[in-house]
């Protein structure tokens, strides 16, 4: 059942690579396409809400200090139609997230992919600069 779900989601994710991520703002006014980041940590909160989903991850830096990063994705209605549910990513999940940093230096990332320790991968498309556009 679980593998079926992730197969469906992987299919949706493949679509997402080609699909524009929907936002109410342009990518470049908030995020910097020249600043890709890859961060690993434990999910502390999921906000499956409009106008974007946000989830938060505790990430340890090189000195061992924990910083809570925010990650932004498409609106929940778009993701729901592509197989996501509000608990697809949930508190306690260990994740590695790729995306692009906010221009203003905040601990905020336009999320592109989420990878779980067993290799399962979800794609939000955000941070896929060419495909990221507002609607």
């Amino acid at each position, binding site marked *: 059942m679980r593998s079926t779900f992730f197969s469906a989601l992987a299919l949706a994710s493949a679509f997402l690579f080609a*699909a*524009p991520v*929907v*936002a*109410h*703002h*342009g990518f*470049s*006014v*908030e995020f910097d396409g020249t600043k890709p980041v890859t961060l690993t940590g434990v999910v502390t909160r999921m*906000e499956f*809400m*409009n*106008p*974007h989903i*946000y989830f938060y991850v505790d990430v340890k830096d090189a000195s061992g200090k924990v910083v809570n990063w*925010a990650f*932004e994705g498409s*609106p929940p*209605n*778009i993701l*729901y*139609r592509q197989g996501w549910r509000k608990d697809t990513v949930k508190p306690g999940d260990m994740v590695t997230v790729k995306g692009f940093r*906010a*221009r*203003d230096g*905040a601990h*905020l990332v336009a999320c592109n992919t989420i990878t779980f320790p067993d290799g399962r991968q979800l794609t939000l498309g955000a941070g896929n600069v060419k495909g990221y*556009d*507002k*609607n």
Partner: protein
Amino acid sequence: MIRLSRPPLIAVIAFLALPFLTACSGRTGAQASGPPDLNGVWSAPFTPDISKPLGHQPPFTPYAADLFKKEDEIDDPLTQCLPIGPARGIQAGLMPFQIVQTPAVTAVLFENQRTFRIINTDGRSHPSDPDPSWFGDSIGHWEGDTLVVDTVGLNDRTWLDTAGHQHSDQLHLVERFQKIDKDNLKWTVTFEDPKFYTEPWSVTLPVKRQNTEIMSYSCEENEKDRAHLRRTNTKK
């Protein structure tokens, strides 16, 4: 036992067969008579730059050309969670819209910010001096398989697309929603605005039926981006 004479028998058979005949007639509408049925959830391709399907920039007036060069995406009304406007709502891509059609009124329900348009098809005219509004005053009539919608009375606060094509409160929209078959429409919009464009210009997009329902969307529900936005002017 009731015996039917031949003419009534033929009438009964024709009546019973009517739904089947209508379904198989190839008619683009669902109704046996009257205008085509546009009811349903639809979506056109996301069109962030309306000059792309046009093939070139629209015929800017000098004023509009200067404005287009200077604008920044941070000023997009949508970024401020303001309404999307009548034509841009059709081009919203992954956020579909629903058409609810009655003889006197056709409503367009946008998923984007859960806004809507009312198109009066009862034969009325535009008010003589409409108060400018986000979706204006729309009246429609049928020309064969096409709902022709005329809209005036728009305010100047929406954009036509993400790229920043703008308009004034003199904008006059003429849209043609043509029923191609049960799952396809052709939408043609003509923009006329003497303050922004030297002549009317038109764009046509395919519209496809969606196997979904209109879902919730509130831009203000958990808006956290505006505090992080920075002017870029990277577009020009």
